[in-house]
C-alpha cells in the first residue's frame, strides 16, 4: 500500500461507505473506483477488503471476471473499435487490425507512452453507422481502413499541441 496517497485511501474508503446500507455492494464499489481511477490494482482491493470485510480473493475474482474492471491503467485515449456483428460484417476487423498495426499493440493493450489503448468493443448499438469507432466518447462513423492513420495523427497532433 506504500505508494497509495493518503487522499486516495480516504477516497476509496468513502466510496465503500456510500454503499454501507446495501446487501451486496461489491460491484457498485468497484465500478465507482474504476470510474474514479481508471483501474483497480491489488493495493486498492486490499483497502476495499479491509473496509467491507470481503476477502481479497473474492474481490480479485470479481475484478478479473468482468471486462469493465482492469488491473492496469488504460491509455489517455481509449480507442474503442466496435466488433458487434453489424460492424463486423462491414469490415470492422480490418479497422482493428489497422489500429493494431500502426500502434504496435493488440486489443486490450496500451502503448508504452501511455497514450493509446485499443479496446475491442462488443456492440455499441450504433449499427447504422457501422463500422463505428469511439475514442473517449467521440464517435467516428463509417470508418474506413484508409482513415485510421489520420485518426491516430489527430490525437498525436493534439498531444503535441498540448505539450
Amino acid at each position: 500500500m506504500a505508494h497509495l496517497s493518503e487522499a486516495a485511501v480516504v477516497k476509496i474508503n468513502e466510496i465503500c461507505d456510500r454503499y454501507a446500507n446495501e446487501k451486496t455492494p461489491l460491484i457498485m464499489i468497484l465500478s465507482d473506483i474504476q470510474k474514479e481511477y481508471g483501474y483497480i490494482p491489488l493495493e486498492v482491493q486490499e483497502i476495499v477488503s479491509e473496509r467491507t470485510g470481503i476477502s481479497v480473493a473474492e474481490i480479485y475474482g470479481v475484478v478479473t471476471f468482468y471486462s469493465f474492471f482492469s488491473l492496469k491503467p488504460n491509455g489517455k485515449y481509449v480507442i474503442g473499435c466496435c466488433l458487434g456483428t453489424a460492424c463486423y460484417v462491414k469490415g470492422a476487423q480490418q479497422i482493428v487490425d489497422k489500429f493494431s498495426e500502426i500502434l504496435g499493440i493488440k486489443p486490450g493493450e496500451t502503448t508504452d507512452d501511455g497514450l493509446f489503448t485499443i479496446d475491442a468493443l462488443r456492440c455499441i448499438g450504433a449499427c447504422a453507422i457501422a463500422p463505428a469507432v469511439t475514442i473517449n466518447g467521440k464517435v467516428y462513423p463509417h470508418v474506413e481502413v484508409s482513415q485510421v492513420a489520420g485518426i491516430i495523427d489527430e490525437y498525436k497532433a493534439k498531444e503535441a499541441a498540448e505539450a
Partner: protein
Amino acid sequence: MIRTPEELYARAAVCKEILDSKFNGSDGKIYLMICGGGGCVASGALKLEEECNRLIEEKGLSEKVAVRKVGCFGLCSQGPFIRVFPKDVLYRLVKQEDIKEIIEKDVIGGEIVERLLYVDPKTGEKIAKQDQIPFYKKQKKIALHGCGVINPESFDEALGCGAYQGLANALKMTPQEVVISVLESGLRGRGGGGFLTGRKWQFAYNQDSKEKYVVCNGDEGDPGAFMDRSILEDNPLSVIEGMTIAGYAIGASEGYFYVRAEYPTAVKRLRHAIEMAEAQGLLGDDILGSGFSFRAHIRLGAGAFVCGEETALLHSIQGLRGMPRPRPPFPAVRGLWDKPTIVNNVETLATVPYILRNGVEEFTKYGTTGSKGTKVFALGGKVNNVGLVEVPMGTTLRELVYDIGGGIPGGKKFKAIQTGGPSGGCITADELDVSIDFDNLVALGSMMGSGGAIVMDEDNCMVDVAKFYMEFICDESCGKCSPCRIGTKRMLEILTKITEGEATMKDLEELETIGNACQTNSLCSLGQSAANPVISTLASFYDEYLAHIQDKKCPAHVCKNLTVYSIIADKCKRCSLCAKKCPVGAISGIVGKTNFVIDPEVCVRCGLCIASCKFGAITKEQ
C-alpha cells in the same frame, strides 16, 4: 403526486390533449421533432437541435415554433431526422446547413423542401409522410409504444401517451387475475428463450414468501442488438410500469433493473424515470391508494455477456462473479438472496402495460398461434434500411429484409440472415418465406434470441462468420463447466485452421462432434447454444466449408490466407496509385510504361489497393 386512479385518469386526459396538440396543431404552433436516438446523435442530431433553436430565436419565431427532441425514429440509416408537425413531413439525412432552408422554406413559407424527403429505393418516389414509407407501413408498435413520440424525460408526455393506465387497471384486479391475463395473452419472454411469461409469474406467485423480487434483464449483450437500449432510452416509464405490474402480480415489493454499463444514456434516463415515478407516488408506498408498495433499484453490469443468463445475472446483482448455476431450483423458487424472483427482459416488461391497458384480445389479435403479439428487431448488416423495427409475429423474413429493410445495397445478392446472435443461426434465401415466430426459427436451426437480425450478402464468408461468433463465445465463456470452456476453445482452433486453409476433412468431423458435445453437456444456455452458429452454417453452407478445406479457396474472398490479390492487365492504366498506397511495397511497375503487378509473397491483403484503384483493375478472384 397522483393518489388515486381517478386522479390519474383526469391528469392523463389533460396531458393527452397537450401531447396531441403537438401533432395536430390545435395549439397553433409548429413543432420540429428531432430524433434523439443513438444513431442520429452520433451523426449530429444535437447540433441540429442547437441550430434549430438558434434560428428560431434569430428569426423571432419562439412564440410560434418549438423544437422537440424525442426518442429513436427507427430508420437509423437515414438519420438524422427532423419531422415537422402539424403538416407531418419527414426530412432525412439532415445536415446543420439544411436547417436554414427548412425554417425559411417550410416553417415560414409553407413549402416542402423536396430534396430532403425520403426516396423509395424501389420506385424513386419521394415520400413526405413517415407513415407512408414502406419501412414503417408493416410495423405495429406495442413494446415500442411511445418511442419516437414522447420526450423520454417528460412524465406528462408519457402519461398523455397512456402510461400507467395498465397499472391502474391491474390494481383493480387481484394479483392472480393479473397473472392469468398475462398467461392468456400468450406473451413469451422476449429475451431469447421464449418461455411463457405468465407461467413464470404463476410459479413465483405460488411461492409462499414475504420477500420476492422482480428483476429486469437489461444486459443486452448480443452484438448487433439494441432494442432494449432503445426502449430504456425512449420510454423508460413503460418498463418501470411493467415491472410494477409484475411486482403486484407475484407479490414482490422490490425490483432491480440490471442494465449494461455500456449504455450510459439508458441508465441516465431510467434513473430519471424512477425519480419521476417516485415523485408522482407511482413507486413507493400505497401506489394509487391500493395499499400495494413497490420500489425499484438499478444495478449496472460490468461487461460480461454471460450475465444475460438469469442465474448468472442474479449472482452479479449479489456482487459475485457472474457464473450460472444449474436449474432447478429455478429463480421463481430460489432467486435473488434465495428468495422467489422473476427475471424478465426489458421488451417483455415494456409489453405488459399494453396488455393490461388495452386488454388481452387487443394483444392476441397480432401474431401466430404459438407466438402472440409483436417482436422488435434490430435490423443491421447488409441491408438498405438499418434500424429498429417492431413487426407482428408471423411477418415473413422476406418482408423483413425486402419490404421493411428495403433489400440489399449495391445490387448484391442476399446470402443469409442471422438471428439470435451468438446463440442463433443463419437462415438462407430458400427459407425467407417462413413466418417469424419462436418455434419456426428454432425449426430452422436458429432462434428468436433478443432480436438481432443481421443480413449478410455474397461478400460475407459464412465460415468466417461462424468463427466470429465462436471467438465471441470463447471469450465470454465463464469457465465454470468444461464442455463450454474447452469445447469453444477447440472449436475456435478448428475454425481458425479452416479459414487459414490448414484444415482437413477430419477436422470438420471433429468440429461437429465437439459442437454436439458442447450442445448437450454444457451447464447453461450460453454453452448449450455456443455451437449453433457452427451447426447452422455447416447445415446450410457446407460447400463453403468444403471450398476452404479441399480447394483452399474462400468463395467470398474474406479469409486472408486464401485470397490472392492481382491486377487485371487489360484494365490497368499504369497510374501507380495502388503502388503508392500499398503499405508494404508489394506492388511494382513503371508509371505509364508497364502494367503494375502484386507480389503475393509480400502482399498482406489489406485491401487498400482495391479501395484506391479508380478503374476497378484489382481483383481478389483467382
